[in-house]
């Protein structure tokens, strides 16, 4: 069958995938794609601003268009349809015959007919090219304005603020997201959007756009509103709704809706039975669906129908969630309680900016809709309750009321969901499908995504998928196991207790008693770290050395070329001129690359194994010791200059930082530990982004815990305030030991805290109020370790047995000739593969 598909957007492409999966009938498919690249993920378009590339967004699997039955024509538009001859004419003049034709032309952004709308810097937001234009203009602008305060408009506004622009949203209606939410919700949403730094102007009707007073940056355009006010801006993005691209169908005489849209029946056929329309260009039952999930459903219907099946499109759910980091907004079903007799429950907390509303049937037994703002955690559950018509509990209000401490929420478990419940609406995946995939061996969300596609589009269903996965694994008895690895059927915490309670001092002993096999690169370092935290054994003793990762084994950080870096401790970031000179001399002598790190110290790169002992000798002779940059241990205690010099300093933050760094140096933990001490609330040491951070106040020290920079930043939380020096140290002792006892392998304090049952209150109970009565024990354990600290570099070079191990080759004094450097900005850097290849052709290189 000769099939022509016009449009290779999200929905058109989904149709192709489905046809190729079925592969029953043999199709010969021509795809016309007006854009310069095949289908990409428009839903995640905004991620382009945060670094995604066009390739990342592509929806096309490698090799997909290499199939013989598919012919993709990029940069080619369909310009007319000759229904008599069954021919599509393209923009390059080609005539392509068809047996069946599918229109998947999507929609275009609506730009209201405001005079001045086509001035340079007036843009829309739909394609990758649009985003490129926005980025270009963003660079030349200081102020950006979005016209339209709907889902897309808000996403766009966030993108503008992320580009560093002072951002405005102009909305015609009295509130934001007028279609999805009510007045009460609109107020809370507005406050949240304003908190992102966006100025919101509602009830503004733009009459015209003209020259602004500033002309250049900061007022290129002036927007004049019907109420007489005006706004100056450098760029404008229209996001005032979408209109179906129905021009081809219209010219071919197909039935078109009064306000646009290609009319389709339940099989997605247009008024010509050989022509289908799907996605945002199609009008079903008087409605256009501006979401991708209904489009995918239409694609499924057409794929089936073309192969002789007859499933029908019966409308789709329009529930949505806004994809803005930090602004949870969701709307489900009949959010405005338009159903006759509908009842509503509303909860507002203006301080925390929460707004939640439930809409139920008149008898209160079934959920018709909901609005969630500020916390959309219940979105998945509520959506399922509505879609599956699950009977509500007697007091439905508890579904949205914040749970008072500890009590479980009166929600539904995933077990209550029928097998047919659609969990992922984007990809039409049911609970049954997910359960079967788990039965067939999927063990993680990533595996489920790969084999069912659930969760791979908007991601809104991932929390629910995770719950189902867990419940299913538990049900199948596939212990949702916390086993460290195949060698130990215990969690890290359990192993820690075994080691302590049974006084186990070696890995071999632990393996003999509680494990199997030889161990591996997961359990060995973990147990090595536990042994070090419990007994503070030297990490490089003959028994412990084989447990260490290369970094710990060589007391340096391995680099991409196999060389190592050297980071001496510079406690609190304080260093004398003489200290600096020594570092400079050593780096110069051994030709090391030097860099100031993000942790207030100096890193020297490019040493080979056999050079490490000599370098350490020179450093330790000058009074330096290891900075443990390689270990899962204390890294730096960053400090600000504090009361000694700074006119605002409350207390001596430098002395405290140095004291803390020396106290905890060398302490082995489940993951690295970072700290900071600031002399006042201006917080120049960024203590609130640290595992434990200290801030001086008039009344003493405030202790913050469980912060993180890095991959997933998290603000630290206040654990205790107004502490004197001694109490501060005791609190930190307890906190660190409690973390070391109970955390998982490679779990930073932030993640540990997020998984800690009872949260901050529990942590305060244990650490500050000593509810478990283990405070003294934790302090004693810490004291034992602090007392026996020894510098690992010095130990390594002073022990001839250990020092002997630092050789590049066991049978030669040569160095690794694959470690090759070139010069850049007056220092060395590793040569690239190309540079290495050309090193024999006379290009200057510095060999190690």
């Amino acid at each position, binding site marked *: 069958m000769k099939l022509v598909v016009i449009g290779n957007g999200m929905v058109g492409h989904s149709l192709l995938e489905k046809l190729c999966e079925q592969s029953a009938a043999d199709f010969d498919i021509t795809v016309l794609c007006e854009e310069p690249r095949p289908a990409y993920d428009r839903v995640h378009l905004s991620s382009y601003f945060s670094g995604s590339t066009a390739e990342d967004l592509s929806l096309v699997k490698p090799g997909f268009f290499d199939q013989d039955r598919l012919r993709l024509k990029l940069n080619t538009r369909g310009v007319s349809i000759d229904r008599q001859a069954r021919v599509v004419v393209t923009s390059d003049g080609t005539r392509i015959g068809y047996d069946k034709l599918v229109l998947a032309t999507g929609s275009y952004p609506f730009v209201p007919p405001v005079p001045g709308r086509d001035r340079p810097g007036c843009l829309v937001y739909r394609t990758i090219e649009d985003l490129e234009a926005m980025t270009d203009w963003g660079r030349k602008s200081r102020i950006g304005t979005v016209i339209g305060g709907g889902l897309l408009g808000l996403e766009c506004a966030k993108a503008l603020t992320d580009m560093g622009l002072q951002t405005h949203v102009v909305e015609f209606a009295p509130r934001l997201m007028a279609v999805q939410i009510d007045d009460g919700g609109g107020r809370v949403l507005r406050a949240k959007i304003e908190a992102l730094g966006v100025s919101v102007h509602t009830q503004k009707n733009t009459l015209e756009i003209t020259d602004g007073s500033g002309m250049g940056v900061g007022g290129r355009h002036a927007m004049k509103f019907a109420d007489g006010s005006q706004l100056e801006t450098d760029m404008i993005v229209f996001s005032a709704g979408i209109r179906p691209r129905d021009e081809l169908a219209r010219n071919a005489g197909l039935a078109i809706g009064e306000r646009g849209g290609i009319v389709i029946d339940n099989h997605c056929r247009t008024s010509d039975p050989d022509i289908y329309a799907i996605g945002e260009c199609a009008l079903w039952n008087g409605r256009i669906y501006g979401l991708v999930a209904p489009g995918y459903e239409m694609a499924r219907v057409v794929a089936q129908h073309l192969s002789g099946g007859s499933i029908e499109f019966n409308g789709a759910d329009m529930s949505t969630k806004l994809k803005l980091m930090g602004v949870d907004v969701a709307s489900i079903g009949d959010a405005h309680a338009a159903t006759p007799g509908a009842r509503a429950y509303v909860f507002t907390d203006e301080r925390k900016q929460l707004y939640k509303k439930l809409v139920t049937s008149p008898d209160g037994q079934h959920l018709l809709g909901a609005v969630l703002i500020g916390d959309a955690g219940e979105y998945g559950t509520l959506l399922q309750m509505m879609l599956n018509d699950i009977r509500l509990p007697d007091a439905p209000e508890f579904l949205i009321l914040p749970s008072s401490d500890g009590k479980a929420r009166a929600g539904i478990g995933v077990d209550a969901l029928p097998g047919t419940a659609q969990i992922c609406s984007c990809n039409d995946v049911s609970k049954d499908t997910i359960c079967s995939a788990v039965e067939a061996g999927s063990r993680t969300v990533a595996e489920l995504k790969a084999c069912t596609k659930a969760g791979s589009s908007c991601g809104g269903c991932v929390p629910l998928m995770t719950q189902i996965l867990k419940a299913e694994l538990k049900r199948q008895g596939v212990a949702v196991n916390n086993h460290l690895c*195949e*060698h130990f059927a215990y969690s890290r915490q359990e192993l820690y207790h075994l080691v302590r309670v049974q006084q186990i001092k070696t890995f071999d002993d632990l*393996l*003999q008693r509680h494990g199997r*096999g*030889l*161990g*591996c*690169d997961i*359990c*060995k*370092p973990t147990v090595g770290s536990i042994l070090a935290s419990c007994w503070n054994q030297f990490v490089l003793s*003959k028994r412990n*050395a*084989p*447990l*260490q*990762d*290369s*970094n710990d*084994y*060589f007391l340096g950080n*391995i680099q*991409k*070329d*196999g060389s190592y870096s050297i980071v001496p401790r510079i406690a609190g970031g304080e260093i004398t001129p003489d200290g600096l000179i020594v570092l400079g001399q050593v780096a110069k002598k051994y030709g090391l690359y030097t860099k100031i790190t993000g942790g207030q110290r100096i890193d020297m790169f490019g040493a080979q*194994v056999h050079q490490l002992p000599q370098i350490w000798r020179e450093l330790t002779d000058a009074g330096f010791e290891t900075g443990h940059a390689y270990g899962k241990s204390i890294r730096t205690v960053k400090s600000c200059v504090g009361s000694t010099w700074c006119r605002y300093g409350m207390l001596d933050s430098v002395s405290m930082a140095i004291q803390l760094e020396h106290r905890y140096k060398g302490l082995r933990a489940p993951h690295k530990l970072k700290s900071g001490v600031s002399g006042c609330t201006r917080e120049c040491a960024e203590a609130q982004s640290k595992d434990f951070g200290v801030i001086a106040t008039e009344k003493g020290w405030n202790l913050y815990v469980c912060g993180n920079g890095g991959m997933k930043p998290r603000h630290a939380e206040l654990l205790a305030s107004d502490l004197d020096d001694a109490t501060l140290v005791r609190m930190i002792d307890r906190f660190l030991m409690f973390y070391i006892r109970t955390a998982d392998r490679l779990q930073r304090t932030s993640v540990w805290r997020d998984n800690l049952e009872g949260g901050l209150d529990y942590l305060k109970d244990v650490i500050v109020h000593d509810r478990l009565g283990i405070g003294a024990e934790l302090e004693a354990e810490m004291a034992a370790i602090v007392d026996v600290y020894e510098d690992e570099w010095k130990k390594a070079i002073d022990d001839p047995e250990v020092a002997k*191990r630092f*050789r*590049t*080759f*066991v*049978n*030669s004094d*040569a160095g*690794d000739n*694959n470690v090759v450097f070139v010069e850049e900005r007056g220092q060395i850097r590793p040569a690239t*593969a190309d540079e290495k290849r050309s090193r024999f052709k006379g290009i200057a290189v510095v060999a190690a």
Partner: protein
Amino acid sequence: MDGAGAVSPAAQWVSVCRIEDIWPDTGVCALVDGRQIAVFRVRDRDGHDRYHAIDNHDPQSQANVLSRGLIGSIGARTVVASPIYKQHYDLTTGECLEDAAHSVRAYAVRVDDDHVWIAV
């Protein structure tokens, strides 16, 4: 004593170090005719030492580092994990468990008179 890899008839046995030069459950790198070979001493659960040799070059990172990886077992196989990106290499065959296309060469090893010998 402990075999690994195939010994071709033309292979030459070369002594690279004494057994005490390799701490149990660690590796060292030997330079043989300009070739870097990672040599491992693995203690089994009964306390017997076995010796293995594979290329020191890690095809995934393009760095000469395999001798510096952690030794362990995965199922019945004895493996080393590359210290750079943590792929596992079978010490007996050189096969890369994550991506067989990136496997390395394994060499036969024997111990004689407290010396470790490799067939190259």
